[in-house]
């Protein structure tokens, strides 16, 4: 063949290339060059970020944060760009940001026990000295099911156990007091589903009122506001924060010290206590790190003390800046975890209302849902099923929100994901496959923009993979799972404590769990690189296999009428149960080896470890919570009925319930709201 013919053929072939592909090929040389530099610059929502690209080991080896393939064949390079690409570029297989955020480990600070004060102390204890406050909140089961604490014994025993008891907006204010909820370095996650809209409304009001407090102080309005409060309210009847010694912190006194106590350790933080609630006569004090923010308007709303237009302005600003996540994933509740309280349809409507409210009020730093595979995995699903069901649930929310007329780019960035990482090989690519499927779907199916294409997810190591025998070995499992997660570029990570299999974790075990992440992030040399999985034959093969398996599951769900149709036939539930049984059988026969459980037993046969003591809430805490909610109801009793009626009317008129809930929670407790909604939205109907 003549060279001219070859050139002609070349030009013909080139015409068959899609413009996008052509562009990628043309850019490659520049990309290689970009990653050779010592620094990397990129844009995050209009902000220029410049970060170092290399790290030097003790031996002097320069380790780059991102390594690119050394392929020569343009086809290999193009395929890599189309299916993998550098972190931060479509299809985001290796990660949704070019580089990890500096100075912020993805570590979350987990707490939830007793009443709001105890949990608040714990939050301050675990976050003290950390630049970023990433608080994860566990609620007690009374709260998870939308009820108020009460003396009825079947309720009483659960108040404040395995989570914090939160029944009112004032409880939420105490819970997060001393953390500026609108600070860019604070982010709060709330593990709540059935009553998520109510808890979210508590939280948002707490955030707004904190900003009102700041406004009052910054504008020297304290005296004025104090006078107003004293004229309108009986100060003794307003709720109080109770310190560790059982003494209350006096409302107005706290306001007076506010101007002088910017220092958390300031002795003036110790103030005269007021003993109507506590019965004690000592001095109440705040935990180290708590500057009292959020407590000055306890029992009131900023709207009661500030002019309406000022309040609305502060509210708008607070909503636009507050950062966090609420789990609120009702589909996985019906499929795996069972904390549904409302009929599924009504629960979905509530979620849609929250999302609509977020769009209208520009709540852009808060995830309205954490689409969770964790509980599906904990109930026994294998990693492929976990991923497939979870993504399918995510797309179900997308379809529902679209059907309500919302724009994909207005809500997709408010969605986040939550997966479990266990020991199975597929866990090494769970983030890669999730990001890839999400990005391709968003771009080509829903024509969404780049921001919407980025799937962000939280990982918690598998609780189910921890065992009650040889519990010391559990940290080893968690370490390996954490390594999977960090190599896979998760956006947030929670490592379980080794004793979680037998009891509520202690301070010692939680510290060890946090050390696991810190050791990987700060000590492990290969983790300084941010794309260690790219280019590994095993990882690439697994990625393709898991992607194909997930798509096959989508087909099976689709044949059953989609996620909701499949749920009606209990398809997901049954599949999860079968997979759980398969695991249990394999574990029992020893075909699936578990060290210290069914193999490599110690001299004594590796017996089950029983906890020596269990952390439970005290009756004093329970009584206090019951009293708090009773007093709250008494304080607002004149308005309760009217506010609940208003809420019902919104349902009947098919209006936005979350907009109304933002007002309802100022005067009504969680249980009052839940019961009102039952009567107009329907209670969850159990299935078998």
């Amino acid at each position, binding site marked *: 063949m003549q*060279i001219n013919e070859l050139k002609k053929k*070349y030009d013909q*072939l080139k015409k*068959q290339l*899609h413009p996008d*592909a052509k562009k990628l090929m043309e850019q490659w040389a520049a990309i290689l060059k970009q990653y050779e530099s010592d620094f990397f610059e990129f844009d995050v929502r209009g902000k220029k970020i410049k970060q170092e690209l290399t790290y030097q080991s003790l031996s002097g080896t320069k380790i780059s944060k991102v390594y690119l393939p050394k392929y020569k*064949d*343009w*086809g*290999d390079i*193009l*395929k890599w760009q189309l*299916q993998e690409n550098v972190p931060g570029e479509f299809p985001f297989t290796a990660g949704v940001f070019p580089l990890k955020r500096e100075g912020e480990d993805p570590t979350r600070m987990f707490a939830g026990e007793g009443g709001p004060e105890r949990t608040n102390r714990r939050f301050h204890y675990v976050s003290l000295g950390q630049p970023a406050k990433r608080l994860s909140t566990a609620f007690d*089961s009374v709260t*998870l*099911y939308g009820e108020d604490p009460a003396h009825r*014994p*079947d*309720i*009483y*025993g*659960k*108040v404040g*156990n*395995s989570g914090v008891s939160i029944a009112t907006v004032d409880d939420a204010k105490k819970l997060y007091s001393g953390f500026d909820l609108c600070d860019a370095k604070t982010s709060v996650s709330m593990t709540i589903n059935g009553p998520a809209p109510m808890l979210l409304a508590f939280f948002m009001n707490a955030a707004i009122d904190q900003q009102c407090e700041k406004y009052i102080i910054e504008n020297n309005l304290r005296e004025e506001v104090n006078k107003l409060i004293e004229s309108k309210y009986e100060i003794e009847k307003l709720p109080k924060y109770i310190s560790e010694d059982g003494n209350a912190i006096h409302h107005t006194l706290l306001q007076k010290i506010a101007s002088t106590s910017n220092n958390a350790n300031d002795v003036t933080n110790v103030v005269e206590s007021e003993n109507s609630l506590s019965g004690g006569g000592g001095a109440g004090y705040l935990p180290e790190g708590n500057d009292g923010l959020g407590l000055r308007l306890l029992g009131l709303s900023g709207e009661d003390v500030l002019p309406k237009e000022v309040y609305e302005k502060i509210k708008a600003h607070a909503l636009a800046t507050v950062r966090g996540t609420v789990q609120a994933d009702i589909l996985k*509740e019906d499929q795996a975890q*069972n*904390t549904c309280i409302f*009929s599924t*349809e009504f629960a979905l409507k509530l979620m849609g209302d929250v999302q609509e409210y977020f769009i209208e009020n520009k709540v852009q730093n808060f995830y309205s849902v954490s689409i969770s595979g964790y509980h599906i995995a904990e109930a026994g699903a294998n990693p492929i099923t976990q991923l497939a069901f979870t993504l399918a649930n995510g*797309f*179900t929310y997308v*379809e*529902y929100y679209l*059907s309500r007329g919302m724009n994909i780019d207005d809500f997709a960035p408010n969605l986040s994901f939550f997966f479990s990482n266990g020991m199975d090989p597929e866990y090494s690519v769970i983030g890669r496959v999730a990001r890839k*499927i999400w990005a391709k*779907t968003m771009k*080509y*199916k829903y024509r969404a923009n780049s921001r919407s294409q980025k799937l962000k997810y939280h990982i918690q190591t598998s609780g189910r993979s921890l065992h009650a025998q040889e519990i010391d070995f559990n940290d080893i499992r968690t370490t390996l799972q954490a390594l999977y997660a960090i190599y896979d570029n998760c956006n947030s990570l929670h490592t379980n404590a080794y004793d979680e299999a*037998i*009891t509520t974790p202690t301070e010692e075990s939680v510290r060890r769990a946090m050390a696991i992440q810190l050791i990987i992030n700060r000590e492990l040399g290969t983790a300084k690189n941010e794309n260690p999985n790219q280019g590994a034959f095993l990882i690439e093969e697994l990625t393709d296999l898991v992607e194909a398996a997930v*798509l*096959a599951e*989508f*087909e099976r769900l*689709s*044949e059953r009428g*989609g996620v909701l149709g499949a749920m009606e036939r209990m398809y997901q539930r049954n599949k999860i*149960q079968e997979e759980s049984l398969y695991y249990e059988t394999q574990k029992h026969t020893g075909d699936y080896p578990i060290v210290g459980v069914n193999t490599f037993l110690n001299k004594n046969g590796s017996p*089950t470890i*029983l*906890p020596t003591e269990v952390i*439970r809430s005290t009756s004093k805490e329970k009584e206090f919570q019951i009293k708090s909610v009773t007093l709250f109801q008494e304080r607002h009793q004149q308005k309760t009925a009217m506010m609940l009626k208003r809420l019902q009317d919104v*349902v*009947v008129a098919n209006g936005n319930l979350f907009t109304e809930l933002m007002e309802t929670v100022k005067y009504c407790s969680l249980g009052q709201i839940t019961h009102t909604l039952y009567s*107009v939205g*329907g209670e969850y109907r*159990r*299935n*078998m």
Partner: protein
Amino acid sequence: MNFVSKNKIRIVTAAALFDGHDAAINIMRRILQSKGAEIIHLGHNRSVHEIVECAIEEDVHGIAITSYQGGHVEFFKYMKDLLNENDCGHIKIFGGGGGTILPGEIKELHNYGITRIYSPDDGRQMGLEGMIEDVINKCSETFLFPEVEVFETPASDSFALGENRDIKKVARAITLTENGKNITGYINNLKENSPKILMHKCPVLGITGTGGAGKSSVTDEIVRRFLNAYTDKTIAVISVDPSKKKTGGALLGDRIRMNSISSPRAYMRSLATRESDKALSKYVREAIEICKAAGYDFIIVESAGVGQSDASILEYVDISMYVMTPEYGAPSQLEKINMLDYADVICINKFDKTGALDALHDVRKQYKRSHGLWNTKDEELPIARTIAAQFNDAGINELFERLMEKIAEKTSVQFNGEIEHQAHVKNTVSQSTIIPPKRVRYLAEIAETITAYNTWTDEQAAIATKLYQLDGVIKMMNEEK
């Protein structure tokens, strides 16, 4: 004579209040059933009051609960207290909660009178089957039938759990008749103690239909509307589920779906057919008679869904309703359904399913044909379109009105009260709003999108490879020149 062990063991199973962990209790209930017990399964998140009410109404031997969320000491003690307060101390309580219930707490609960809490160690020593056999053995020691029938006569306002009728006596009478005992004494006693405002006639509604049609949901929605509309009236529901021929056990699964039944004005009893090929228990007639004697104002009998030809419920009821879904196959299938010829009202439930309008058309045609109603307008036919899963469904509201009309027409009973309608959240005829029917293939479409992208990627890469190779050859040829 102790004939207890020969009788069916009946057990309520549930997970504790605010507790969603139902995996263990689901395994337990299956094994209990396979050992021949009749199981009334309540599912997760059940309060002590709901469980005790169920235990008394269903006249069970035992209650088996799992509790993994803490608060178990208070929970189990409260259950024991509530049973004792209502003179039902004979009902045994079993529980388990893995490692969450500490050894000391187990001891404390046993001392309090809880029959048995099983620890993880018990599980290892006895095995799952061993534990279940232990439960059954302990239950069979319960002596339900006194030698002499004693009728303590409580004042009419102090029935068990504050219910409006004497649920304990009703429950026991049904158990006796199920076990072939004479219940004349009970019936007379119930009549004597019934509220004076007894109506002349208590209408009985029969509900039947295919399995999976949503009978229990429809029943629940009717009960809710009845209780809301007639605030001084009482209702009894007798629900029949099939027994397993092989084991003799039965899963009485209707109660788990009933959200409205835990009212002092409602009684519910689940019966097993005790013969697997029947849709009804032999003792339905007696059960109805007992409920009437106790003074219930309205009775619903819900039958197990077996076969298209079954119409046995008609013998026992004043009016009947057939519940079906749009998914019955070809229109010719409708010709085989006997109940379409006999039912007073037909309910096409799950009307949000595709093909619902075709189903409505077919059923109307079949109904006209079998009733010779050639000239009746479609809207006048007693065919309701419902989505029971949808709260305050407009279709169910209409169905309820039709049923009350039929009752008035056929039995001349009119319950006094206002049927108060809240504004309908949505109309049944409107399509389900969560995922519009035309979007229901979304997951398949996503799979197609991704597969198409992957194929396209491979094609583009293949072109790029060829270009690379050509480029290499051209360069090589240029060099050789």
